[in-house]
């Protein structure tokens, strides 16, 4: 969305408005000096929304990523987190954009990208408009038997300075895509970024391919997957933050990619289950979140509704695709019977006309097949993609609630400690008192951090949602235009066929 951020002034003002607008929370913004030194390891930024080391390797039972295992796994919380091996191996943990309010933090990492928020990106990049096109092609079976896999060629064409070259290609397999998604999800989901979900795993589909069954259904499966992978990558790079992520760049550019440790990477089914667990967990905690911002409540409801509608539409389109395929089959059968009729016919001219009829019907059959494909690849997959995207959207909302809860927990703990300290004042235990005071200081820092985190994720989500909504409209429009073009083309083909057949029919007698 970097392009829209650049091109559309209203959007920029939007950001600023958010920034300067009403505070989400009544508490005053924290400043640098109140930052306790003993806070979590490397991350001393005030408003950093980077992946805190503690949260990353936190074996907090509430850590929802504990659930993010292979899709056929049992959802046991004890299972060790198979988060992607954290951030990309070659580079130390990256800080995603920090807020514009504070200057860059003193990270010890020599990360390449220390972009601040969206605003700063615009200023820094100046003129590097969004111009990147990724295609996934040439599926190739590698290996034999059950260890075989499909390798896809990922070609990137771009003029952006972000990349070393303007056109390059690499070979990737499905688990690489899942691995990429897993890394992005672990870095960005919990701070409010809507990370596009990866395509679904399919045991049945892949087994057919592995076994070497070269039939129409396995070809369709490979095509469906190829298309889905392409859409996945395009969606990912359209996100201005994700585009610059080193894992993404490495995925697109480097010829060798370390194999994703576990192919039990975050699949969207896993993601869905994770989100559902999150929802359950949240409910179990009976969070009565004091939603001081009606915007979030309204948006959540809106997305619930949208989810329901999209699923309905998806079902509707699937039935349409099914009927179209049936029409193609029936047309082909009719064509055959017309040919037989033509052959049995004595009258020469009528016989010829009937044979022509059979040919026309065969051509129409092909049109029906093409139309069925358009129905499917354009609409059905689009709707499916958005249903899956919405799970990611719901995920970030749930993360916000979790962030809020964490903040509240810290506050309550602080309260208790303060009470305990007050009591200790009256006893004669100076070292215990000092300890209490120390703990309180630490907790105060935590509370402030919690609040900042909450503020940050709320802000991020607002931006993300706005971006999502705009993308959604653009996406749909683009697909619909493609679809209409296919419809027009079909009719024009039909016109040609009928115009060719008419003189044949008239010439019968």
């Amino acid at each position, binding site marked *: 969305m970097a392009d829209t951020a650049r091109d559309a002034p209203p959007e920029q003002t939007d950001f600023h408005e958010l920034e300067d607008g009403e505070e989400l929370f009544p508490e005053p913004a924290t400043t640098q000096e109140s930052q306790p030194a003993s806070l979590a390891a490397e991350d001393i930024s005030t408003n950093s929304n980077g992946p805190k080391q503690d949260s990353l390797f936190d074996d907090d039972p509430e850590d929802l990523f504990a659930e993010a295992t292979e899709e056929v796994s049992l959802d046991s919380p004890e299972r060790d987190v198979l988060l992607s091996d954290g951030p990309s191996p070659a580079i130390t943990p990256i800080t995603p954009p920090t807020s514009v309010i504070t200057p860059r933090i003193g990270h010890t990492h020599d990360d390449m990208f220390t972009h601040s928020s969206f605003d700063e990106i615009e200023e820094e990049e100046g003129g590097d408009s969004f111009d990147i096109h990724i295609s996934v092609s040439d599926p190739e079976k590698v290996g034999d038997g059950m260890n075989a896999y499909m390798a896809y060629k990922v070609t990137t064409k771009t003029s952006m300075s972000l990349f070393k070259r303007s056109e390059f290609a690499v070979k990737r397999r499905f688990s690489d895509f899942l691995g990429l998604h897993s890394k992005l999800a672990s870095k960005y989901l919990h701070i409010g970024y809507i990370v596009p979900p990866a395509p679904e795993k399919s045991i049945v589909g892949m087994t057919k391919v592995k076994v070497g069954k070269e039939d129409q259904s396995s070809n369709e499966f490979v095509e469906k997957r190829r298309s889905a992978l392409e859409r996945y990558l395009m969606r990912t790079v359209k996100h201005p933050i994700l585009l610059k992520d080193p894992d993404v760049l490495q995925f697109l550019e480097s010829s060798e990619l370390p194999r994703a440790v576990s192919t039990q990477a975050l699949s969207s089914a896993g993601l869905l289950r994770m989100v559902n667990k999150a929802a359950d967990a949240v409910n179990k905690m009976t969070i009565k979140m004091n939603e001081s911002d009606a915007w979030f409540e309204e948006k959540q409801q809106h997305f619930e509704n949208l989810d329901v*509608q999209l699923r309905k539409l998806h079902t*509707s389109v699937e039935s*349409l695709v099914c009927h179209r395929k049936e*029409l193609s089959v029936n047309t082909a*059968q*009719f064509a055959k019977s017309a040919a037989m*009729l033509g052959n049995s016919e004595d009258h020469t001219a009528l016989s010829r006309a009937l044979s022509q009829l059979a040919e026309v019907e065969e051509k129409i059959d092909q049109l029906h097949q093409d139309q069925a494909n358009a129905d499917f690849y354009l609409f059905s997959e689009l709707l499916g993609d958005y249903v899956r995207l919405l799970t990611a959207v719901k995920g970030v909302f749930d993360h916000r609630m979790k962030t809020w809860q964490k903040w509240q927990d810290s506050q309550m703990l602080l309260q208790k400690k303060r009470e305990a300290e007050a009591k200790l004042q009256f006893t004669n235990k100076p070292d215990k008192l000092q300890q209490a005071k120390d703990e309180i200081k630490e907790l105060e820092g935590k509370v402030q951090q919690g609040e900042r985190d909450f503020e940050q994720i709320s802000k991020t989500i607002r931006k993300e949602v706005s971006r999502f909504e705009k993308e959604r409209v653009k996406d749909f429009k683009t697909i619909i235009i493609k679809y209409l073009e296919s419809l027009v083309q079909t009719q024009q083909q039909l016109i040609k066929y009928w115009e060719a057949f008419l003189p044949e*029919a008239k010439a*019968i007698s």
Partner: protein
Amino acid sequence: MMEEVKEAASVLSVHDDSIKVTEVLKDGDTLTFIIVSQKLSGTGEYHVDRTYEDFEWLQQHLFSQEDVPGIQGVIFPPLPAKPQVNASSRSIKQLGFLALGECQPYCKALETFLQQVAAHSILSKNKAVEVFLTSSDPPGRQKVKKNIFNRLSQAVEEMRKEGHKDVDEFFQNERDHNLVLTGCTKTAAEKFLDVVATEQKIAVACGHFSTALHLCVEPGEDPDKQAFSRVCVKLSEVFESIKKNMTSVAENNVNTLGLGLDLESRYQEAEREMLFRRTCKLVELENARRNTEKAKPVKKAAMEEVKKAAETEFEHISGVAKQEIERFQGARVEMLQQALVSWCEKQLLTAKESADQFNQHLEVFRGMA
């Protein structure tokens, strides 16, 4: 050479090609068809209302003209099967194309039947036809005497006769050819019906999708929401257009080629029945000849009589049959040509209209900034 018929032959007083079944009235389970025909004298038209039973009455009368020589050699215009208001699935299957649409295909089929009867040189002379088309009272519902055409499933012995070798090469060829053609036509009609049924399913599915899209429209002033709602509304219109297109395509199919294949199929059956009757007569004749040869002198004269009668009948039938076949072959080619031409023209028109509509939608979407 036509003998004097006992029943006064009548001359039909209407133009055969002016006969139209203009509408059908539903009253509970009863269907009444309104039939309009132009007077030959040019002084106006006849309006009559008839039920399906009246059509059957007419057909029975046509079948029972035993005194018309060679009547069995006539290829009788086929009457469509009985329509039912709340049709069972079996009856729908039997009716095929005629069961589709409101009643337009069925009415057209009845109309064709009447026109063909009225245009037939032998059949049109039957008084029943005049009565049927012009009498304001319903034709008699009295039971007509049993006729020679038992169209119910033929007994096994009868079936064996169908394969009986012919004495005339012309007829043998015609019989063989008819057998093949009947099968092919029936199959083609069935497959085409399947195509139409699927087209109708698609139309319905598009309607559902269109409706579902309206549910995505959300109120509110949020510009993004409005933008998406607009997209949904416009897309819904697109699918309404697709639905209309599919419906037209299906209708065109039914009203032209569908009806054509249906009529051809039923007519082939009618020819087959006629050929079978003639074959039965041939078997009868051959039996009579054998009996005459074998007969004892006492019975010989009687057998001779029977044999002679059979020979004459067979000659008449064959004579009429030959004429009918030639006429039929010409008529069916013409009918099929007309069906194919009007099918092609209608589909061409529909395709052009749809292309225009889709283009308009395309422009709307392209213009939606």
